[in-house]
């Protein structure tokens, strides 16, 4: 082979490689651009929400007019809003506690007890996950009305606990399924009774699912509209207050509430990720 032939072979090989490289590069660019677009679609609205909470002018238009904390100051002075926040905290705390006390036994029952009507029970408990909240809302409203029960924050709590049951049951049930049966058996062999086994063996092992679904229930309840809309009396929760303000028009005060909610959510997300990582590290 002459030197020229050799170099031509090397050249064509190089050419082919660069051709493949270029195709890979184009593909990579297209993927990155597509993913970037999707992320922009997801996050530009949130950025807009937060950015305009600091905008000096009342109208939400481009360009922004200057920096102010005025909208936050107004929030701090808004008694109705603060009351709504307290109401929401009350509702979310109670309904989370309630839904956990009912949901954990429900998951245990679905996991390890056979009883007549189990299939119906499972369907009924899991229904609200895909069922529009409005149906839970109006069916409970009709019942409370027939019972002549006045609507209040407590009826909202009952509604939320019912709607969120599915969240707790699915997560705890999934965790229980991955728990080796031998744990419970070993505990029983060592003389523990059922209650001891539950609190000393089962519960610590499903802790991450309980905490995770509890946090999720709390957030969902704090944010809930469709059930609250029908079941609340004169007291407003935060979303209901925001909703009624929103219907009157757009104001940067809502953006300020939104920015605060985004901040709190971000903290919760980071907390739950850390929690998840701890669990993985232990295992």
């Amino acid at each position: 082979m002459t030197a020229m032939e050799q170099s031509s072979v090397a050249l064509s090989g190089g050419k082919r490689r660069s051709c493949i490289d270029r195709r890979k590069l184009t593909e990579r660019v297209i993927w990155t651009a597509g993913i970037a677009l999707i992320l922009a679609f997801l996050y530009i609205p949130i950025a807009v929400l937060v950015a305009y909470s600091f905008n000096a002018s009342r109208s939400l238009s481009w360009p922004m007019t200057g920096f102010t904390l005025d909208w936050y100051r107004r929030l701090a002075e808004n008694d109705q809003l603060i009351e709504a926040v307290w109401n929401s905290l009350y509702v979310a705390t109670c309904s989370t506690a309630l839904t956990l006390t009912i949901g954990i036994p429900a998951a245990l029952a679905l996991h390890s007890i056979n009883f007549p009507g189990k299939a119906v029970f499972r369907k009924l408990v899991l229904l609200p996950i895909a069922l529009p909240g409005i149906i839970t809302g109006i069916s409970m409203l009709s019942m409370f009305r027939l019972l002549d029960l006045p609507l209040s924050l407590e009826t909202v709590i009952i509604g939320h606990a019912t709607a969120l049951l599915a969240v707790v049951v699915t997560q705890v049930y999934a965790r229980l399924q991955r728990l080796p049966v031998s744990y419970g058996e070993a505990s029983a062999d060592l003389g523990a009774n059922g209650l001891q086994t539950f609190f000393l063996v089962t519960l610590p092992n499903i802790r991450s699912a309980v905490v995770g679904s509890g946090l999720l229930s709390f957030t969902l309840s704090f944010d809930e509209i469709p059930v609250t809309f029908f079941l609340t009396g004169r007291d407003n929760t935060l979303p209901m207050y925001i909703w009624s303000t929103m219907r009157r028009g757009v104001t940067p005060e809502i953006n300020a509430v939104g920015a605060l909610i985004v901040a709190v959510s971000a903290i919760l997300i980071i907390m739950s990720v850390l929690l998840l990582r701890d669990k993985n590290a232990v295992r």
Partner: protein
Amino acid sequence: MSRARSLRTALVLSPPLLWTVLFMFVPYTILVVCSFWRAQFPLFVPDFQFGNYLTLVQDPQYVRVLLRTLKIAALTSIFALLLAYPYAYFLVFKVRRPGVRLALYMVVVAPLWVSYLLRAYTWKTILGTEGVLNSFLVSTGILDEPSSVFLYNQAAMVVTLTYVFIPFMVMPIYAALEKIPRSLIEASSDLGENRLATFLKITLPLSMTGVVAGFTMTFCLSFGDFIAPVLVGGPDGLMIANVIASQFGAALNWPLGSALALVMLVIVLGVISASDRFERLGKGTLS
């Protein structure tokens, strides 16, 4: 021992059973019964007649709302799928570092923790006549004057609902794609199939359970939504949930509202059971 055991079983079982009977079974039953009642001052009188259902069939406005709602929910699910599938595919097959993958996954799921109401509201502020998009387009000279085409129409609703519910599409598709053994894809390319064929014959069919689960979730959630129509839907954007809400509010016709809610319930249950059947079918062919 066995008595103690059955007592314990009863103790575990009774709270959830009582709760589901009292707050799910009874209310749903009342809803069914109420749909046969008659609206009369102050609220309703017990009866057994099909008048409410007849109204729903005969009055064209209800059929129209129902069809519109189905259309919006279907479009939302399709758009969410078109965005979510490539995204999940990218995460599973293109991202090598597990840390980056987790981060990109969390980035999509995280908005679920941010108030749903505010995520819908922010689109109202973006798309409005005096909103961010309009003023941006005017200030850059693309538009001469603010346009009203962005807000208060069905497109705005589809965009908003897609935005709000897309995490529910990404999660199951990601889970399904992640479960596909890499060896299958390698085997396919070793056997000389090109990447498109591999995708169409291996990846796509094996991820269908995730697609169906995501589609079902997104469809049902947007089908029952009544926030987005009010915020961005405009006068002819009302969906079925808004009509139900108004029957229980201003229109004060609870029996008709109950009947409408039952129609909604039947459709949702139909979609769910169809997707369940599909899932079982898929498992059958795999094993």
